[in-house]
């Protein structure tokens, strides 16, 4: 079977090459015969990739351990489910999976748009085929998943990484890949439009849905990744700015920017160059993301190890793509000129411009920060760390600005807003903001960032509510139905707009969860049986430590009784699991008691069997569950935006049949509320122990001693330092020592504690660790001096250059307006004179216009 697999890959490569070549030839010679054949070959690639996927899954299912990839990622005792999903558990398989998904998506996209975008299709086929070729090429020459052992075929496999044996990790990669792959389709259409020169808005229509689908999957994948990190890695957080997480986030930012700016192009015919650029950038960033995670250029929890050759392959591909794409953009620049102009600075266009600038800045900043250690290594030969502190410092204000824009954007009218409207529009949202801020301040919240964030959340929520209420009222007046039908009709009539608002509600909830972070509390304690710890409203009593074995793994479990405000609130059982064959990497089983207000999160960090004592890391994470809920709302909004018109037909009728409408309406409301209620229920459910392995790790300094006693931080300085110094074990993905669970981190924590106890200052502690490791690497963010100043300067520079660029573009548009307004006046004068000459005809046209407008509803 393995040789058949290799053969299929080779065949797929040849067929993809054929498809690309013959489609371009067909398009140039205007030969339908060639193009048809090319499309057929394109489908053939899809079928071949499906075949290859089926072969490898078959090999996993039957346990064909002669294939190296199967051997590395599976063994005979693995459950069937994980044996199948081991397909994308490693590097080679995930590339195969990627191409498979891309070919399926591509085939669907080509099939759907075959007739409506006849002129673009040949080039779309060619471009997707070339991308497929690149990945198949990598597989054939470098990472063949069908490689076999030549001699000594092992009897059994090595088993899948325990870390990945969790349902979350099973759906997370496919979801991210689907998102990435989804972004290739817009790129292919964009490039086809550039090549053919059919640069009207038709390609955008073909692409919009695909971008939304890709975006949805990307968001889903990112959220799953966050849940995974939160529930499996056991450091109490969900986003550690790991390079791989960042890799998924980069295209998310540019895709979000595209989804916004595409509206400007559709409505106003502006930002045409910009949209093409965003599509190209999104695609490049998805490739770049794969490159970062697969080639080991940056250190990360997820990285598959260093691979110079692969790095070169990816780099050359990316350079080729960039040159090709931007070359065409420049070539087609004359066709991409804006058709309209900016009427006013206080308009939605301007708000979108600002939004795009911020989103792009975020993407560039994260890209830069992720690459900075590599950059620094190549320039100065010293590897540094750019840790969460650095990111958070920048992303906090950026996030808040984005939140402000989320609120302001919908309030502004296209083209122009005047002072009176502004007052009218902003009255309630500002009142809401002020009330929230005042209320929270009165309640004693002094954390300025969180306070601002909460207030802004209120601002955006009120804005959106106002939009819905006013819109429903307007529609009610216009159509004469009841409020609810009007509301549904409103959403149905402009699904993208109101779906978008619902997405914004989701974003608000997510921000709410982020803001809760600053009220996070954590404690590290050693408890003997019977002892208790009180943190916030929770009291934890250590009851017993038990060691059990279920044949597959040995489990060390601490049994803790929880009470909240003195009332018993169930039991939590954090554990460490030692899998057979992976004993050196115990997994941390976090125990979480979930609640809408706060999560109690307990990690068994260490234990001592002799005297039954346990070392616990206890976190109280406020509002975390709102992040997941927010994603649910976001997905719902996206689906509403994607739904076809007919779904809402019942409420779009002007005089609805009352009975039918009402029932359907309630059905719909029920449908909308159901997932919400489900989430709430789940959120309130009693303590859940999440099963599954956690913690990256492996050999070297990263072994977890069974009886590591934790040192509880005593002073604020020590606590802060635990978040400013990172673990140097090299396996944990550069986590901060306060978060890492390995023995080296424990040792480093001990050193910090000693130094602080000796009365050393922060700088002296820094100096101590820098001396010990010979570089600034152990510091979570680079010290602002010398070359490192770049790290701090670049964001400013990029930000201001971007702002400047946006202003210049806007000025140019305004300028274009002032010069063109003269000719515009001429044109309108000509219009009116023409109108005067045939006034009867004009009246007729006006009437028709009114008719059409009525029909357009």
């Amino acid at each position, binding site marked *: 079977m393995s040789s058949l697999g290799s053969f299929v890959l080779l065949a797929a490569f040849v*067929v993809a090459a*054929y*498809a690309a070549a013959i489609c371009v030839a*067909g*398009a140039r010679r*205007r*030969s*339908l*015969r060639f193009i*048809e*054949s090319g*499309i*057929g*070959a394109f*489908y*053939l690639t899809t*079928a071949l990739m*499906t*075949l290859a*996927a*089926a*072969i490898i*899954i*078959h090999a996993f*299912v*039957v346990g064909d351990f002669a294939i190296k990839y199967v051997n590395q990622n599976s063994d005979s005792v693995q459950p069937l489910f994980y044996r199948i999903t081991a397909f994308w558990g490693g590097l080679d398989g995930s590339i195969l999976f990627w191409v498979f998904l891309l070919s399926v998506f591509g085939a669907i996209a080509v099939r759907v748009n075959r007739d409506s975008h*006849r*002129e673009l299709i040949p080039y779309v086929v060619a471009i997707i085929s070339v991308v497929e070729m690149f990945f198949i090429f990598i597989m054939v020459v470098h990472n063949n998943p069908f490689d076999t052992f030549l001699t000594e075929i092992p009897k059994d496999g090595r088993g899948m990484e325990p870390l990945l044996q969790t349902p979350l990790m099973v759906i997370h990669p496919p979801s991210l890949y689907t998102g990435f792959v989804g972004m290739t389709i817009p790129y292919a259409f964009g490039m086809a439009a550039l090549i053919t020169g059919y640069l*009207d808005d*038709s390609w955008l229509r073909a692409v919009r849905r695909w971008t939304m689908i890709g975006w949805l999957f990307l968001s889903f994948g990112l959220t799953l990744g966050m849940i995974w990190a939160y529930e499996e890695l056991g450091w109490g957080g969900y986003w550690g700015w790991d390079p791989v997480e960042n890799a998924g986030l980069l295209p998310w930012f540019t895709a979000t920017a595209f989804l916004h700016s595409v509206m400007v192009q*559709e*409505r106003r*015919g502006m930002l045409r160059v910009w949209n093409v650029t965003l599509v190209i950038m999104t695609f490049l960033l998805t490739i770049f993301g794969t490159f970062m995670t697969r080639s080991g250029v940056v250190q990360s929890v997820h990285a598959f190890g260093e691979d110079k050759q692969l790095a070169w392959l990816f780099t050359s591909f990316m350079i080729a793509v960039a040159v090709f794409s931007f070359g065409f953009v420049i070539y087609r620049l004359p066709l991409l000129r804006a058709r309209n102009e900016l009427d006013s600075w206080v308009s939605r266009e301007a708000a979108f411009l600002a939004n795009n600038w911020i989103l792009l800045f975020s993407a560039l900043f994260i890209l830069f920060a992720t690459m900075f250690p590599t950059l620094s290594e190549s320039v100065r030969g010293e590897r540094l760390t750019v840790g969460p502190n650095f990111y958070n410092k920048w992303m906090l204000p950026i996030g808040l600005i984005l939140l402000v824009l989320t609120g302001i954007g919908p309030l502004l*009218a*296209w*083209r*122009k*807003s*005047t002072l*009176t*409207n502004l007052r*009218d*529009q902003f009255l309630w949202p500002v009142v809401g903001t002020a009330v929230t801020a005042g209320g929270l301040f009165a309640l004693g919240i002094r954390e300025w960032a969180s306070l601002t964030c909460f207030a802004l959340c209120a601002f955006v929520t009120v804005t959106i509510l106002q*939009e819905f209420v*006013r*819109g429903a009222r*307007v529609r009610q*007046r216009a159509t004469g139905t009841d409020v609810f039908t009007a509301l549904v009709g409103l959403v149905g009539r402009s699904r993208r707009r109101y779906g978008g608002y619902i997405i914004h509600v989701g974003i608000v909830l997510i921000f709410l969860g982020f803001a809760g972070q600053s009220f996070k509390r954590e404690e590290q304690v050693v408890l003997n049986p019977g002892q208790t710890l009180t943190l916030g409203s929770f009291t934890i009593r250590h009851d017993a430590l038990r060691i059990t074995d279920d044949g597959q793994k040995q489990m060390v479990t601490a049994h803790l009784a929880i009470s909240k405000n003195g009332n018993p609130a169930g039991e939590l059982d954090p554990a460490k699991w030692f899998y057979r064959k992976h004993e050196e990497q115990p997994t941390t089983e976090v125990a979480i008691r979930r609640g809408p207000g706060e999560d109690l999160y307990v990690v068994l960090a260490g234990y001592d069997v002799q005297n039954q004592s346990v070392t616990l890391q206890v976190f109280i994470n406020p509002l975390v569950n709102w992040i997941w809920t927010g994603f649910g709302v976001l997905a719902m909004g996206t689906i509403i935006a994607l739904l076809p018109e007919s779904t809402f037909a019942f409420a779009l009728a002007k005089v609805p049949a009352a009975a039918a409408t009402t029932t359907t309406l309630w059905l719909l409301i029920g449908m909308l509320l159901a997932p919400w209620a489900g989430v709430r229920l789940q959120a309130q459910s009693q303590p859940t122990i999440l099963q599954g392995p956690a913690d990256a790790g492996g050999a070297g300094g990263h072994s977890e001693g069974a009886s590591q006693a934790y040192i509880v931080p005593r002073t604020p300085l020590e606590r802060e330092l635990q978040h400013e110094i990172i673990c140097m074990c090299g396996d944990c993905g550069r986590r901060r020592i306060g978060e890492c669970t390995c023995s080296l981190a424990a040792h480093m924590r001990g050193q910090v504690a000693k130094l602080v106890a000796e009365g050393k200052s922060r700088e002296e502690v820094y100096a101590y660790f820098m001396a010990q490791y010979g570089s600034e690497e152990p510091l979570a963010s680079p010290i602002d001096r010398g070359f490192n100043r770049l790290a701090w300067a670049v964001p400013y520079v990029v930000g201001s250059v971007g702002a400047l660029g946006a202003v210049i573009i806007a000025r140019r548009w305004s300028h274009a307006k002032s010069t063109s307004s003269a000719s515009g006046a001429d044109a*309108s004068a000509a*219009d*009116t004179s023409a*109108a005067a000459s045939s006034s009867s005809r*004009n009246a007729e*046209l*006006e009437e*028709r*216009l009114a008719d*059409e*407008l009525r029909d*357009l509803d």
Partner: protein
Amino acid sequence: MSSVTSTDGVNFRPWHFFVILTLIAATAAVLTARKTSPENLVMVSLTVFAAGAASIALYRALVPLVGKERALRAETLGHRARAALEREKTLVLRSIKELEFDRAMGKLAQEDFDEMSQRLRARAVGLMRQLDASHAAPREKIEQELASRLAREARDPQRRATQRPRAAGSPAAAVAAEIICETCETANDADARFCKNCGTNLARAHA
């Protein structure tokens, strides 16, 4: 894949052949499989199905090459331009709608609304006029034709009776501006000098 290879109303298409072949192959593979656990059998058949799909796609890729060459139907420039105009019009109409909605939501001052709305409406009317003009050519011709024909019929009921059977075949026959050949009764253009069917000298016949 529209080439129908069979008869008697049963549309046997080429892909049916591949489906049958695939089913046979899958059955054979399942029967001969050494490991007979259910998941193995399912995977084996799925693999064979994928191979079958590949063979259909291969056929689909090769058939156009041996088929007749059909030139890529180039949309006429006029057609494209018209489509662009239509799109532009829809865009403007939507903008007007949006503007009205924004006004109703209280986001827009009345004078701004009036000014923008006027501009957009003027633009929409202009576009509509352009659109009318672009298909005015055929439409006006038809209208003229119809009018003259009706007039003629009203004037000459006798002739109408004689022409009725033929009129369906060549609707333009009765139009005054055209010449009916006296020998074969074919309609010819007004300025035709010879009948396009039988070659009779029309000019002489009418003179």
